[in-house]
């Protein structure tokens, strides 16, 4: 048990890790340090870059810059195999098990060290040994598809121990577990760390952090914002670090002058892609010259809400009325023609066609109409001229209007979408997470465009996870939880605590 004492050399160090994805800066100069026998919690909101950082360690992504040191020695991790050889193993949120195979077969899958002719008996014995040692209760001959989620997770852990993992990365491990199973997981991890192994937890649950970890590193929008010892902190402090309460910059805006109702949503019920109820009777309205913010933890029906309004998703019951016309379950094209614009949540997957030029992407709403097209024939020159104007107006940084849009940075991709959508908008702008993953400058310009649209007499629906953004940009805020609206409050009278309670499922009436 001599390993238990803290060695002076960290088992793992990550220095200045930066990762760019098309459209976002996923990790921005992040450092990480882990000593043997320690449990580190990586805390952060959705999209803060926790999983991305760990995927670099697991060999799934390559960092654009930064260094990784194992036991003080610089290493390069190019594949999960490299990572495993260095003693790093990751249990992903979606388990990587072959359901139709047994535990033993899954454990040795892809291992070079096994003999050509498999000795599954020997493998089984070794699995039983590990299982008994950590009390994992895993039968090597059992089929994966017959196991519960908790059991499958233990197989994943066993797989990593079998392969000699020294550092265990667990991506939101308790999200799928019952409280009892979660406790059991905690026990297993504790036992492993007492033997000198280390673990990294990805999570956004406070209580878990307090219970499991020795150290906490908080990520916010891809940046490391704080490093604290668990015993020196509290869930309250952690949540403040995670959300980043302090407003980074103030938005200047006049009070809104709401006009007549543009969008009226009446008792809308809709299913999600899995056929479960995602919207359970939503009602609200937005007036001209008003921004309604939608707050909530991701996955509480926001996506479905934006999609039923834009016609991408079917409504089961209820009504959507846009400028006094019933637009329930109309096609996306009909809704576009009624002047509704949409800034989709996943800007690269839904907002642009990467292999087409910036100019063409800017024309993707207006190309149907004169003067860009006549008798079905496009006018490339007119598209080019229009694109040039928009590029100047929205300060889109692109080498040329003819550059394929996928080569632009995230902020400029978003500006391209904004330019197009705002240009085509005449009644309602539906914006889902418009500033997510953008740098400060781009964020500011996106927010100012929202307000400018409002001042131009449009109604704006702004979905965001960022409470600061919602409080500074919108006029009213509706909070969603579990497919319901918990309450709608005036933005200038709202406070983070109250919004947070509603996000957690407490209706507005009960707050007072």
């Amino acid at each position, binding site marked *: 048990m001599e390993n238990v004492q803290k060695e002076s050399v960290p088992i793992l160090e990550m220095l200045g890790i930066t990762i760019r994805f098309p459209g976002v800066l996923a990790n921005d100069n992040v450092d990480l340090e882990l000593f043997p026998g320690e449990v580190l919690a990586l805390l952060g909101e959705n999209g803060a870059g926790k999983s991305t950082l760990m995927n670099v360690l697991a060999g799934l992504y390559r960092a654009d810059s930064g260094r990784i040191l194992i036991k003080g020695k610089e290493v390069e991790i190019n594949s999960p195999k490299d990572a495993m050889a260095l003693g790093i193993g990751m249990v992903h949120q979606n388990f990587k098990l072959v359901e139709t195979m047994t535990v033993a077969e899954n454990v040795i899958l892809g291992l070079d060290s096994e003999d050509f002719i498999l000795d599954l008996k020997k493998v089984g014995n070794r699995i039983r040994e590990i299982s008994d040692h950590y009390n994992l209760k895993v039968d090597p001959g059992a089929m994966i598809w017959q196991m519960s989620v908790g059991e499958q997770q233990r197989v994943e852990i066993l797989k990593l121990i079998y392969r000699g993992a020294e550092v265990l990365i667990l991506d939101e491990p308790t999200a799928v577990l019952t409280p009892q199973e979660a406790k059991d997981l905690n026990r297993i991890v504790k036992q492993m760390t007492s033997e000198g192994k280390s673990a990294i937890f990805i999570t956004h649950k406070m209580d878990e952090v307090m219970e499991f970890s020795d150290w906490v590193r908080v990520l916010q929008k891809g940046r490391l914002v704080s490093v604290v010892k668990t015993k020196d902190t509290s869930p309250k402090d952690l949540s403040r670090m995670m959300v980043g309460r302090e407003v980074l910059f103030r938005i200047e805006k006049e009070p809104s002058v709401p006009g007549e109702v543009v969008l009226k949503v009446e008792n809308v019920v809709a299913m999600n892609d899995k056929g479960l109820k995602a919207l359970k009777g939503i009602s609200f309205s937005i007036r001209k010259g008003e921004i309604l913010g939608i707050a909530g933890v991701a996955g509480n029906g926001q996506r479905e809400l934006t999609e039923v309004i834009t016609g991408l998703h079917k409504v089961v019951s209820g009504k959507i009325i846009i400028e006094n016309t019933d637009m329930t379950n109309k*096609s*996306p094209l009909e809704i576009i023609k009624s002047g509704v614009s949409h800034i989709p949540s996943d800007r690269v997957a*839904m907002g642009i*066609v990467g*292999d087409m030029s910036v100019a063409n992407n800017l024309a993707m709403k207006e190309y149907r109409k004169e003067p860009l097209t006549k008798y079905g024939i*496009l006018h490339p020159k007119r598209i080019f001229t229009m694109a040039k104007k928009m590029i100047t107006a929205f300060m889109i940084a692109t080498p040329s209007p003819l550059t394929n849009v996928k080569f632009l940075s995230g902020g400029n991709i978003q500006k391209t979408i904004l330019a197009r959508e705002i240009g085509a908008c005449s009644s309602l702008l539906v914006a889902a997470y418009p500033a997510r993953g953008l740098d400060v400058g781009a964020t500011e310009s996106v927010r100012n465009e929202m307000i400018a649209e409002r001042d131009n007499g449009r109604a704006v629906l702004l979905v965001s996870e960022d409470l600061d953004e919602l409080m500074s940009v919108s006029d009213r805020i509706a909070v969603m939880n579990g497919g319901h609206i918990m309450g709608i409050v005036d933005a200038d009278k709202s406070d983070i605590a109250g919004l947070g309670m509603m996000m957690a499922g407490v209706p507005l009436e009960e707050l007072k």
Partner: protein
Amino acid sequence: MRFVFEKRNTVSKKAFVLVPLVAFLVSLFLTGILLVVFKANPFVTYGSMFVGAFGSWVNFTETLVKAIPLMLTGIGVGLAFRLKFWNIGAEGQLVFGGVTATWVALFWTPFLPVWMVLPIALLFGSIAGALWAAIPGVLKVSLKVDETLVSLMLNYVAILIAQGLYYGAWIDPKGMGFPGTMMFPKSAWLPRFSGRAHVGLFVAVLLGFIMWFVLNRTKWGFEVKMVGQNPKAAKVMGVKIGKTVLSAILISGAFSGLAGAFEVTAISHRLQQGLAMGYGYTAIIVAWMAQLNPIASIFVAVLMAGLLVGGDQVQMMMGLPSAMGIVLQGMILFPMLAGSLFTDYKLKIISKESPEASV
């Protein structure tokens, strides 16, 4: 030292042109090895293939004869490929088009004005090809049935229908049992301009340019690009995905159907064995080598046709199997697919000792 592929920041235009050329050279080299195994001199063989295909006007007209169906089917499948609809059923669409044109030529002539027989035969041939392609198309759009299998299987169905007809119901009663229909009336013959080369050539070339214009200069072409490259975004932007995909598939099939109609009205003047020559499969190579560009498809089709004709020549002159031309065609596809990696990626060399040194 290791090699790593890194995504390029811009699409390489140079690679776009170079890849097909290099792929062709690589396939010449690989087939050359095979020729050496057959104890033939690759240079002499390629030389006589070239002479056989392009060496004289007569030979060249034969190359053009084969290039016409390759142009049409190549442009057709290329359009479907743009929408990631893997139509490998051009062969069946061609045959079904040929069968339908035959039906018009054989049975409608008495009821039509003389000048109308040929246009109607060609039109119906095209429609038949479109309908044959619509089967996998509708299944894919409505039920998400895999189009590769359906379109491939329908090739055999079409070929067997054709056989059933020229061996059975439509067999020429004066043909002494020889499988094939009666000769078409002269009014259903597509004019030839030299040797067997027929006016279908001008139609095919014209259609190639029209297709380029439609893809690059029309609203519909714009939508095809959007749906082909990012259907999700296209949907958000209000494009009707199913309608766009289906219309492109119908046009894709119509091109092959027209190719079949040309074959029966211009070349054989009857429906008989030899309509299913494999043009529909070679079309796949044509489309890829032309990188789905319809104008490039015209030239690639001539090259591929040259390989077919040249292959026949080396069989006659050098006693090599005529399949050599087809081997060469097949060989192109591998380096072509491998090479297309370079349009989006570049090769990066990393030395393991000093990761910093990699550029």
